[in-house]
């Protein structure tokens, strides 16, 4: 557990929870990123503005952090483009079929005590843990 960072995790987690609560109290929307982003691909007219604004805020956060001296490191991704594209397709299709992702089901849904979201969160956690177990320890990647 050498990489365990409980303090920053608690502060960051608290902010994520605060954002979800504020978005619901102010705009009546669930802070589910797959739903917010997915809606951009579908909807027309006045439903797009708040979605674009939320995602703009999400992207602005690391830029502002960079300006004040806390640059975000470039994410470390697998070398294989096939894996990156395959994973992206699975995340996109899966979150729409399942109705949500880590934020929509994992934070907002569990906070609403939704049985659907609790089941969804358990399933995607177990699937992800199994995938990492296979790629890192069975295939040895």
């Amino acid at each position, binding site marked *: 557990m050498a990489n*365990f960072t409980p303090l*920053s*995790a608690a502060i*960051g*987690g608290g*902010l*994520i*929870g*605060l954002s*979800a*609560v*504020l*978005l*619901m*109290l*102010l*705009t*009546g*929307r*669930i802070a589910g990123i*797959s739903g917010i*982003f*997915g809606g951009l*691909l579908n909807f027309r007219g006045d439903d797009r*503005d*708040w979605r674009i*604004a*939320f*995602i703009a805020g999400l992207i602005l*956060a*690391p830029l502002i952090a960079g300006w004040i001296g806390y640059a*975000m490191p*470039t*994410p470390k*991704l697998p070398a294989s483009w096939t894996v*990156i*594209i395959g*994973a*992206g397709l699975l*995340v996109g299709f*899966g979150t729409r*079929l*399942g*109705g949500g992702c880590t*934020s929509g*089901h994992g*934070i*907002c849904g569990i906070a609403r005590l*939704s*049985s*659907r979201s609790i089941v969804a969160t358990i*399933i*995607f956690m*177990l*699937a*992800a*843990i199994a*995938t*990492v177990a296979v790629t*890192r320890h069975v295939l040895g990647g």
Partner: protein
Amino acid sequence: MRVIASLVCGLVFGAGLLISGMVQPTKVLGFLDIFGAWDPSLAVVMAAALAVSVPGFMLANGRTRPLLATKSFWPTRHDIDRPLVVGSALFGVGWGLVGLCPGPALESLATLSPGIFVFVAAMAGGMALYDFWQNPQPKIRNEGVLADADG
């Protein structure tokens, strides 16, 4: 006002992912790798987020309408169906392969990393594929597509 509120919420959400380290795929994979050098940080992130959002959502649920909008999009479904189970499993596999879920993926566009752009494009492609599968005729596509979504 609604747009400014959304922007601020996006900023706070982004700051949360950034400070907690959850924008880094290596940090997320460290949590998912329970058979390796396990990093429980993601569990603390979720616990802290829920410590704020559970009481917050109890407060929100009691309100008749949000402060800056005419109606609330509080999800109403309770059934556990096959799409929920299969979709969540597919998402989990994709998440485990790279360590990116939609929030950190979009936030990481700020780094201008080519791999992130490819991942986000593939993610949008997967979503578009779902939409096309559900409704091949875009003309009659409407708000109903996402009305049943939980998040």
